[in-house]
């Protein structure tokens, strides 16, 4: 709340100043215009299996000593249900960013509870086969919070992911979206890990729906 209140007056002042400069020649009066939208609409995001991927028991001898080991890919069904067609994007926020092997493109998998300096590995997210309101869509990504978009299926941390009709370069209004969220988990090279005890994996990501 405090952050929004702070943003609001600053923006209003800029509108006032520029408008005043344009109108100064014609008359000694000035308009202040404040607009925006408050929407009662909302979208609900859900993941199948309550968003939980469980790789079960992984035998340490099956992991590579000198390169990362990729575990089998998993897929969860993602659904977004909105009260009416909305412009939105999904953003992955990493609760384990400090443990990521490459925070720009990969989510962290937590640290070794027995040796906290050790990073266990990474999680890569990507969206597949999006369908919105019965129409096949493509996945777009934006690295500047929705200003510009590029086709991509990988959902890097903090990158906005939007959905558009095939060929479009801007996200479209969508009322009901379904897509597959692919989760690719990899374990760090075991030469960097102490695995003489059982070590739990601990990936945690928030998918945050942002209205555009």
């Amino acid at each position: 709340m405090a952050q929004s209140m702070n943003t609001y007056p600053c923006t209003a002042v800029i509108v006032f100043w520029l408008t005043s400069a344009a109108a100064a020649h014609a008359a000694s009066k000035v308009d202040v215009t404040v607009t925006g939208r408050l929407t009662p609409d909302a979208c609900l995001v859900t993941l199948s299996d309550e968003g939980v991927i469980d790789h079960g028991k992984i035998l340490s001898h099956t992991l590579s000593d000198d390169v990362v080991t990729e575990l089998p890919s998993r897929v969860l069904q993602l659904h977004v249900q909105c009260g009416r067609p909305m412009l939105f994007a999904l953003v992955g926020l990493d609760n384990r960013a400090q443990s990521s092997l490459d925070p720009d493109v990969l989510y962290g998998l937590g640290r070794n509870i027995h040796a906290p300096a050790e990073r266990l590995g990474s999680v890569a997210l990507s969206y597949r086969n999006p369908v919105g309101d019965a129409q096949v869509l493509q996945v777009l990504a934006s690295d500047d919070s929705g200003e510009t978009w590029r086709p991509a299926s990988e959902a890097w941390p903090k990158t906005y992911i939007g959905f558009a009709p095939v060929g479009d370069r801007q996200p479209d209004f969508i009322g009901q979206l379904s897509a597959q969220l692919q989760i690719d988990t990899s374990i760090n090279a075991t030469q960097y890990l102490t695995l003489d005890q059982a070590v739990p994996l601990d990936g945690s990501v928030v998918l945050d729906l942002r209205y555009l």
Partner: protein
Amino acid sequence: MKSLLTPLATGLLLLGSAATYAASTVDLTVKGLIVPSACTPSLTRGGVIDHGKISAKDLRPDNPTLIGTHTMTMAVICDAPIQFALHSVDNRAGSSASPANYGLGLINGTQKLGWFLLTVRNPVADGAQMQSIVSGDGGNTWYGDNAWDAGLYVSIATMADPSQPASVKELVTDLEVQTVIARTDGLDLSNEVTIDGSATLEVKYL
């Protein structure tokens, strides 16, 4: 005006997002458990063979003397069927009077007291009679044998095919240990000498 309004709208929408935060996010959790070991080896007798006290005058001066043959049972229990080998390491390397076998320690720092031999007998895997196989190149190539020389990999194969290890969940086998003292005319046995053999059998996953 349009472009100027965008930041304002964004400001208001951030407020809106905050208010509906709980409904507009979903958590993704990635779990799993890395477990350290798949197979656990064990030996009866705690892996210890104690020859007690042996009189030096009962040992042959001009030939090696076999002072005992003991059989332990070795079990290797795995979480799931898997190809594995056992790698032996002689912890008294350099003290064996028989180069391929395991040392028993040195007398006065130089005299090799003797050696012991390991032999795999009657291996049974998951209820089936098997044969022991041996690899001298770290598990790349295998041949049928039951003499477990120091440093070799030993694994288990079906009776029909000694060229590759079988996937095994539970292995039970006899492990015969023969202890030999070197000819004593080259040994200083004027004081009590400790028989000090030690080897480590380590599971290697193939």
